[in-house]
Every structure is written in structure tokens, then in C-alpha cells.
């Protein structure tokens, strides 16, 4: 069965290559190939897991390149973490692929879209299955490339093209730190294989010495970029310029999860004695979560609300990792993948029904017109808001419980209160969207004439809705827990026991979480039932304006980072033009040119000259051979 993981990994790549090279013109075949590859991957994942079980901890390797003594294996790491992620990626991606068939049906770049989608799936699976840093980094960059291609898919629209560039470049900043961190790890530990590294650090936790914090933070830089944490969060909302399924795939379910996944994968590097990396990570995560949640409350674009909610939830997960809670982080990541994909796809359904209208203040009264979409969206909202018994409740609760387990009381209550606050805000802005979009009067003609989406789009919604509902109780957390804390007790609970488990284990956290959600719901209900415009700006004044303009981060970066960057670029340009091109290359080129001009005198076209030179050459050879 060992070939199955390889197959899972490379099928999407094959699909991408085939589409790009051969089937560009055949839309259906292209889509079929792409969907087939990812669905086959999903089925193979199930097959593989069912045959070899969850309790794997192996690597499949093949030598990829060797330079001297330095070998890099191309390897797949198979353990519950990667298997679960594989299942998640192929599953969510599969659903989104199918949904795309309907959503993108009229797009001229249909085949190209599916090729990019396959490439993205391949890259994401590569990240998930990598067993070493180099491979991980390469797939990391591939994800960046494919997200660039997908975000900028409608490249004829300047906004989309700019968003693609922004996503790519912002990610570069994080990756810059990431690769330095990788090099640092390699320089100090001499290995890049996760298993080796873990083993070494387990044997000698102080192997990194004083560099522990630095290395951890540098590697965290990668996650900051990819998971859009503060201060590199600015690209994610813009990236909503891509097609909505892409938003769902990249910016909700998978790509941004890569950062969190990576942190969990290399947790052994962060959780070292004498390293403060985790604290910083938790702080960054918490701050991002709060910031994003606040901004989300005053966004009017449905996808931007969801984007900021994604940011906020990612911050939640990162915070959880920072609080040493890998299980809660991955648990929340998994459930979040379900309900955020659901929310995005439902939003896509709405957007499509309203002919690409994304402003929530031009929607309204869609509950009757789009019943399936309404119910699925509500399911997603409930899950995101953490309402029992939806999946979000369980995962959010574990995070809150994790916060309560902190030894340091300041940290403990700080993060716990932060978590509850964010939960309340989350519930508020999500229900704001629900009330504005689905109830009240129809605020535009488009909303008045909206109709339900085709079933090829609705079925993925239904599937995801089901998973959003039950995702918290099917044992995902148990799986992660067994991997991350092998020493702790195994959960053996029936379904109904699981439903009530949070109240038994951490009643304080569960209760407060539920209360926060309820508070958010009521606030939204009070403010947003049957209103034509947002009443909040009047009440909050300039704060609202600040939030609506995303706290002016873009403008800030524009004024500082980008201006500095421009200056630097101008300097580099000058250097390039005058020093490198003018002096270095110019000298070489001029020298070559001069020599060439001299030598071309020899190429006179005169037979005698050639014969003469030839004879001289012969004489020279003879001189060396004979004398």
C-alpha cells in the first residue's frame, strides 16, 4: 500500500500537467481530470487509512539529491497529523473542486482554473506530507505560486492582479525569515529531517542553545506570512479578489492552515527550555484574533467579513499553539476548515445569485429565495460562533480550556478573557451578516430577483454543513490528542457523552463560551433586524471609520514599508544600472566586444589568410609534438 501516498500526492500534479499541456481546449475533460485527481486522492486516503490504520509513524523516502555528504531525501511523513490533514485537504479541496464546476461554468479560463487548482492541491499535499524542511519549504513556495496564480486568476482586473502580487510579496517577507530559520536549524543541528530533528532535540533539548528563541521565531515568520498573522495579515482580505471557491479553498480551509500545521509539525523546535518563542506566538495570535474580529464588525463586503473572521480564527489557532495546545489548534483548524469552507461557498452561492454583488447592504430577504444556502450559511455561522452542538463550539472550547491550563496566572486569565471576548465579537459580526443578508427588506433589485444556485453547488454545501455540525464529535480531537500527548488517557466516549464532554471537562470555559456567543447574537439581533443601513457608525463615530478602513494598516505600510522599499528599489536600480551593468558587465562586454572586433579581422574571408593560419597552427602542433 506504500504507493498510495505517492499516488495521492502526484495525481493532482499529473492532472495539472495534462491539463496545461494537452486538454486546455476541452473544458469538461480538464475539469474532470482535476476533480478526478483530487477525489481519487481523497478515496485513496480513506483506503490507505482504513488499511494501515491511524497509528502510523513512518516515512517513505527516496533519495532526491545528494551533494557531497549532504543528502536530501524526498520523503513522505505518515503520522496521524499528516494523514488527517491529507484527508482534510483532499476532502475539502474535492468538495470545492466540484463546487467550482458550477461556480466557474461560464468562465473563459475554465481549464486554466482547474490546472491551477490541481497545482495548488498538489502543493498543499506536499506541505502536509513533507518529512523535511527543504521539501516543506519548496512546497511552501509552490503554494505561494499557485495561490498567486489563483488569486490573480482574473488578472485582467487590476484589483485581482494587485491582490495576487500583494499575497505573493507579503508571503515572501515571511518566507525570508522562514528560510533563514531553516538554515539556522540546519547549521546548528545538521539535519533537516523532522524525525531526526525531533530525536536530536529530545536527546539534547539545549542543542540550539541561545539561538532557540531566534530559530523558533524565524520559523514562526513563515507561519506569520502564510497564516496571515499580524503584521503580515494585510494580504488575506485583499486575496478575496480571487474567485470565491478559491477564497474558500486557499484562504479558509487549506493554505492559511498551512502555517498552523507547520507550527504543530515543528512544535518540538518551539517548545524548548529557555525559548520564549511560544509566548510571542501566543501574543501575536491573540492580538491578530482580536484585531481581525474588531475589523470584521464594520466590514460590508460579505467576503471581507469572512476573510477577517478567518484571520481572527487563525489567530485563535496560533494563540492555541502558543499556549502549547497543539490538539486544540489542530482540532479548531479541522472544524474551521469545514465551516469556513461552508461559509465561503455559501457566500459564493449568494454572490453568484446576485450577479457578483458582494456588499451585504445590497442584499436582504434571501431566506425565502435561497433556503438551502440560508440554512447552510446559518449552520456555518452557528459553528463559527461556537454554538452547541456545532463543531465550532467543541474546538473553541478546547482552546479556551487550554488557556485556563496555563501555569502563569497573568497569561492564563489574559488569554482566557481575550478568547471569550473574541468569541463574543465573532458571534456578533457573524449574526450581523446573517440578519442583514437573509432577513429584512431586499435592499437592491438583484436581491429581489435572486434564485437558488444549481445543485452542483448546493450539494457541496450540504455535505460541508453536515460536517460543520458533527465535526466536533467524530473524534478528531481524540486523534490529535493521541499523537500530541501520547501519555494522556484515551478518550472512549459514546457520541452523546462527547456532546456533553466540554461541560464535564471544563464547565467554566464551556459556559462562558456559550454565553459569549449568546451575547454576540443578541447584540446583533438588537442592532440589525430590519435595518436599511448600518446603525453602528453613528454610535461609534470615528472608531467605526477606523475599523471600516481596517485600522489603516495598508496606508501605514504604504507610507513606511513600501516607501522604504521603493527607495531601496531605486537604489538597487541605480546600482544595477550603473555599477553592475555599466561597470562590471560593461567592462566585460566591452572587453569581449573589443577582442571580438580584433579577432574578426582574422575572419577576412580570404582563403590565403585561413590557409596561412592553418599552417601556422599545424606548425605549432608539430613543434609541440615533434620537438
Amino acid at each position, binding site marked *: 500500500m506504500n504507493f498510495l501516498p505517492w499516488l495521492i500526492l502526484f495525481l493532482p500534479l499529473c492532472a495539472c500537467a495534462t491539463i496545461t499541456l494537452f486538454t486546455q481546449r476541452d473544458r469538461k475533460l480538464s475539469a474532470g481530470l482535476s476533480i478526478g485527481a483530487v477525489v481519487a486522492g481523497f478515496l485513496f486516503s480513506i483506503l490507505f487509512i482504513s488499511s494501515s490504520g491511524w497509528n502510523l509513524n513512518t516515512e517513505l523516502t527516496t533519495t532526491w539529491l545528494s551533494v557531497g555528504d549532504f543528502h536530501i531525501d524526498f520523503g513522505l511523513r505518515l503520522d496521524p497529523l499528516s494523514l488527517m490533514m491529507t484527508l482534510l485537504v483532499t476532502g475539502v479541496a474535492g468538495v470545492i473542486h466540484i463546487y467550482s464546476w458550477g461556480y466557474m461554468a461560464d468562465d473563459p479560463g475554465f481549464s486554466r482554473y482547474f490546472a491551477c487548482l490541481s497545482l495548488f492541491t498538489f502543493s498543499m499535499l506536499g506541505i502536509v506530507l513533507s518529512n523535511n524542511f527543504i521539501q516543506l519549504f519548496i512546497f511552501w513556495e509552490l503554494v505561494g505560486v499557485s495561490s498567486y496564480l489563483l488569486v490573480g486568476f482574473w488578472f485582467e482586473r487590476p484589483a485581482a492582479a494587485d491582490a495576487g502580487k500583494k499575497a505573493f510579496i507579503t508571503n515572501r517577507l515571511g518566507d525570508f525569515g522562514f528560510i533563514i530559520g531553516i538554515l539556522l536549524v540546519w547549521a546548528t543541528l545538521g539535519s533537516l529531517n523532522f524525525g531526526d530533528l525531533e530525536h536530536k532535540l529530545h536527546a539534547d533539548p539545549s542543542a540550539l542553545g541561545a539561538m532557540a528563541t531566534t530559530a523558533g521565531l524565524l520559523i514562526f515568520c513563515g507561519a506569520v506570512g502564510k497564516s496571515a498573522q499580524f503584521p503580515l495579515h494585510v494580504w488575506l482580505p485583499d486575496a478575496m479578489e480571487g474567485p470565491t471557491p478559491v477564497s474558500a479553498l486557499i484562504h479558509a480551509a487549506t493554505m492559511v492552515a498551512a502555517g498552523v500545521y507547520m507550527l504543530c509539525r515543528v512544535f518540538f523546535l518551539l517548545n524548548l527550555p529557555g525559548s520564549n518563542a511560544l509566548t510571542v506566538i501566543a501574543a501575536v495570535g491573540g492580538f491578530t484574533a482580536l484585531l481581525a474580529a474588531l475589523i470584521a464588525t464594520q466590514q460590508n463586503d460579505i467576503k471581507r467579513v469572512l476573510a477577517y473572521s478567518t484571520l481572527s480564527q487563525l489567530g485563535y489557532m496560533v494563540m492555541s499553539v502558543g499556549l502549547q495546545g497543539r490538539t486544540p489548534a489542530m482540532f479548531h483548524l479541522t472544524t474551521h476548515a469545514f465551516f469556513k469552507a461552508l461559509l465561503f461557498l455559501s457566500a459564493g452561492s449568494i454572490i453568484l445569485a446576485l450577479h457578483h454583488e458582494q456588499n451585504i447592504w445590497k442584499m436582504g430577504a434571501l431566506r425565502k429565495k435561497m433556503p438551502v444556502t440560508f440554512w447552510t450559511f446559518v449552520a456555518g455561522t452557528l459553528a463559527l460562533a461556537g454554538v452547541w452542538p456545532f463543531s465550532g463550539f467543541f474546538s473553541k472550547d478546547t482552546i479556551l480550556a487550554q488557556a485556563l491550563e496555563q501555569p502563569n496566572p497573568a497569561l492564563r486569565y489574559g488569554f482566557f478573557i481575550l478568547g471569550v471576548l473574541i468569541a463574543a465579537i465573532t458571534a456578533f459580526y457573524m449574526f450581523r451578516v446573517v440578519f442583514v443578508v437573509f432577513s429584512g427588506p431586499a435592499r437592491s433589485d438583484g436581491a429581489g430577483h435572486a434564485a437558488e444556485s444549481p445543485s452542483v453547488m448546493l450539494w457541496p454545501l450540504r455535505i460541508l454543513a453536515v460536517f460543520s455540525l458533527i465535526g466536533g464529535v467524530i473524534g478528531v480531537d481524540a486523534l490529535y490528542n493521541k499523537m500530541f500527548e501520547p501519555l494522556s488517557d484515551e478518550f472512549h466516549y459514546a457520541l452523546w457523552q462527547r456532546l456533553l464532554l466540554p461541560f464535564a471537562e471544563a464547565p467554566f470555559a464551556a459556559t462562558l463560551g456559550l454565553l459569549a456567543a449568546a451575547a454576540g447574537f443578541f447584540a446583533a439581533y438588537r442592532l440589525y433586524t430590519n435595518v436599511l443601513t448600518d446603525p453602528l457608525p453613528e454610535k461609534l463615530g470615528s472608531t467605526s471609520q477606523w475599523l471600516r478602513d481596517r485600522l489603516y494598516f495598508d496606508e501605514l505600510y504604504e507610507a513606511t514599508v513600501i516607501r522604504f522599499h521603493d527607495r531601496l528599489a531605486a537604489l538597487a536600480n541605480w546600482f544595477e544600472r550603473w555599477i553592475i551593468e555599466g561597470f562590471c558587465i560593461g567592462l566585460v562586454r566591452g572587453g569581449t566586444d573589443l577582442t571580438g572586433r580584433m579577432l*574578426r579581422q582574422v*575572419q*577576412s*574571408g*580570404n*582563403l*590565403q589568410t585561413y*590557409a*596561412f593560419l592553418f*599552417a601556422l597552427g599545424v606548425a605549432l602542433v608539430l613543434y609541440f609534438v615533434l620537438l
Partner: protein
Amino acid sequence: MTIGLNHYLVVSIMLFCVGLFGVIVRRNLLVIYMGLELMLNAANLALVAFSRFNDNLDGQVFVFFIITVAAAEVAVGLALIVALYRKRQTVHAEDLTTLRL
């Protein structure tokens, strides 16, 4: 003093160099070609002399091949010259400088 290998080799070298001199100095393609033939013949002479003074017929077989190849080469070369003349109305090396840069 009996005539030895060296005598023949000296003749061969001089013949070769006369041919080479012709190739370099003359400008008529046909005469240049004749210079080439002289050089080939010089090689033939050297080979036959070696064959004779080493008690080995291989050298002569070689000469046989050289003569054959030379015949083929002359045929093709002269055909080229004729074709060239048809095109350019000249067989002077000075006038044929298309290869000049």
C-alpha cells in the same frame, strides 16, 4: 651513402611544403587545388617510403585509399568550383570573400 628512409622523407617534406606554399600564395582556386594534390602526394610518398623501409605493406594499402579518396575529393571539389564559377563568374580566392565578417 645509400638512399635511406630519410632521403625519401626529406623529399616528401619538401614536396608537401611546395604544395602548402602554393595553397597559401596562389589565388586561383584551381591552382590551390593542385597544391592540395601535391600535399596529398607528399603524404603518399612518405607512406610508401615507410612501408618499404619497415617491411610492411600496410602503408601502401593506405596510399591506395588516399588515392581513391583524393579522386573522389577532386571530383567533388571541381564540381563545386564549377558551380561556384557559374554563380560568381570567378575562381579567384580574392573575389570569394562571402565568409568575411
